[in-house]
């Protein structure tokens, strides 16, 4: 019982939970902001997983301090990796949200299905034109 609830397993379980939640949002939601947030949640989960991979029970923080090197240290590499990954994740998320804003300005919707229809419509077809007009109206108001 104790082993099952050890901190390592908790971390892994939490990571898996986050990933599943994120996947659900990504796969089942039509709203693009939610999908983007889902991606962010997955990234958080994966990062947690990475950190967990470097975890040693009872080890010290991997700070290079001559006085402190007595016991084992937590593996520092995953933490370095996670830092980078978080930065990248934020950048991607920001870019995605920027795009989402611009799309919403132009079309007035962030519904995946509607947007798919626009992007797959043949050039100059009535459908794409109609969407453009409606989107334009939304922008003015």
């Amino acid at each position, binding site marked *: 019982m104790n082993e099952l609830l050890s901190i390592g397993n908790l971390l892994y379980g939490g990571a898996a939970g986050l990933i599943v939640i994120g996947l659900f949002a990504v*796969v*089942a939601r039509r709203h693009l902001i939610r999908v983007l947030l889902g991606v962010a949640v997955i990234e958080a989960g994966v990062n947690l997983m990475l950190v967990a991979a470097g975890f040693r029970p009872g080890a010290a923080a991997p700070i290079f301090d001559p006085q402190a090197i007595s016991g084992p240290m937590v593996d520092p590499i995953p933490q370095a990796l996670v830092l980078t990954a978080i930065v990248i994740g934020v950048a991607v998320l920001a870019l995605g949200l920027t795009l989402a804003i611009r799309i919403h300005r132009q079309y007035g919707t962030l519904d995946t299905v509607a947007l*798919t229809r626009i992007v797959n419509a043949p050039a100059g077809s009535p459908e794409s034109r109609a969407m453009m007009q409606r989107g334009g109206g939304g922008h003015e108001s």
Partner: protein
Amino acid sequence: MIPSLDLLLALAFGNLGLMLLAGRNPTAGLLSMILYALQGWVLVMLMPALAEGAASGLAFQVFGWSLSWELNGLGWFFAIITVGAAFFSAWFAAGAWGVQGTRSPWAFHVTLAANVAAMLLLLASRDLLTLFIGWELVTWAGYAMMIQSGGPATRAAYKYLIYGVAGGLAVLAAVVLIQVQAGGLGFAAVAAWMPGISTGMLWALMLLLGVGFGIKMAFLPFHRWQAEAYGESPGPAAAFLGAISSRMGLFGLLILLVHFIGLARLDELLLPLIGLDARILWMWLSALTIIIPTFIALKQNDARMLLAWHGIGQGGYMLLGVLVGSELGVAGGLLHVFNYATYQAVLFLVMGAVVYRTGTAHLDRLGGLITRMPLSYVAMLFAIIGLAGLPPMNGFVSKWMVYKALLDEGLPLLFVAAVIGTLGTILSVFKLIHNVFLGQLRVEHEQIREVPFSMWGPMIALSLIVFITGYMPGLALDLVMVAQTSLGFAALDYHLGGFVTDTGNLNMLAVVSVLLLGMGIGAGIFLLGGNKSKRVHQLDNYAGGHFLTTEVRYHYSHHFYAGLLRLIGPWYITLIKRLEGGIAALTDTLAAGSDGLYRTAYTPILMLAATVLGLALVL
């Protein structure tokens, strides 16, 4: 300059380059004729060197494979026919036809040169890789030739292309399989490796290569592309394609069945359940290839389509003859390649001339042209007798050899099948000449003239070859023997006029002489005996009490063999046609499905599915 294969290829590719640059020039046709004649000369000069193989200095090194070329007797025989067909086609296109009759003489000359060059490269291959390269070049060059006139030809060529690519890829798969298994691709190495392989492997290779080569030859059941593709090509292009192009498939099949597998091994390959061996299977497929397209030809309403369907049928005789395996049969099959090329070229050229003058090849819209285009008529008459395989033309000799070989080897049913094909041919070629040249001349055709020399010249010259090689088959058999010995068969015993065998002789010198003499006697009786005949106008004719005027369409051409077709009409099987349509429909459906797959709104769902499936698959 010492003739060598290099010189031949240099001439062929030089011609291609020259036509690319100067194909629009009015003298281009003449120029290419000279170059084809030179190629023919080089080929003749190469003849003594063939026993060891005339190698080319051309060599490439790609990915560890060395590509080089070498001409042997079999390739040489086909090359002679190729260059000859190209020469006469170029002649036909050199004058008025090329200048006025075609959308682009440049396209014709370039594609013809490309075809010849590609075929020579194919025929000079000495390993499977060069063979495949040549094979694909021939396919694409043929495609280029077919599309030049646009319109319905494009659709036909498209169909050809699909078949051709599929066949080419089957060949490719077999080539790679052989390379991986045998470790080498040289013809000799492969032939040495073949006897050791398992039966299943042999079937697989035979199926792949057989399908690949068979498609080019329009072998049953892959026959549906050819007629349209050849028929819709412009006159001389159709003549060239019809005469030789699909024989490249025969060339491949000969290498596969005779050189690689060997007829003896074919006999040992038993089909499961039925107990037939592979050789008999191939022979019956050949026989069906003779019969079915011939009877499809019978119901065609366009002269060129009719001829093209016969072209498919005649291919069956060639393979059938070679598969008999006796000296007579092999020589007959190979001789038929030559003979067929001569008369088929004439027929397409004549129809090219007719189209040039009248603008149509539709068998219901012509008639009576004999008075306006007598030379074309004579050329066609010679050629259809050849195609029908009647004495005194050359088609009779090669067919006789095939029939005789079949009977000698104890295969009377195949013999009967082959003769039925000939009977059908007689019916349909008669329909052709009747509807085009005989009967009533139409008003709109009353003013047309015979085509100029540049067009009737090649027709008449070729039809004389049809007659002379019928009179003296020994002349053509000299060429055939080069190929026959190169294929590993013993040479046939023959003389200038034909053959003396234990079981029956043929002496065309005697047959044709007697026939000519008989006609002399007949002419004596008919022309000298009785009163002199008086020429009447075509409208001065029995009409059951009616007056005939120019408005009356008095030519019986539509639905020519009405009775026969009423009877055999239901026998035309559309199974393969439906199969073809089914495959096309299936592809369309799958294509729409795939397209839809990529248009899914929830993009990540597929990714998730793939990941889960992938993990499930491997863990």
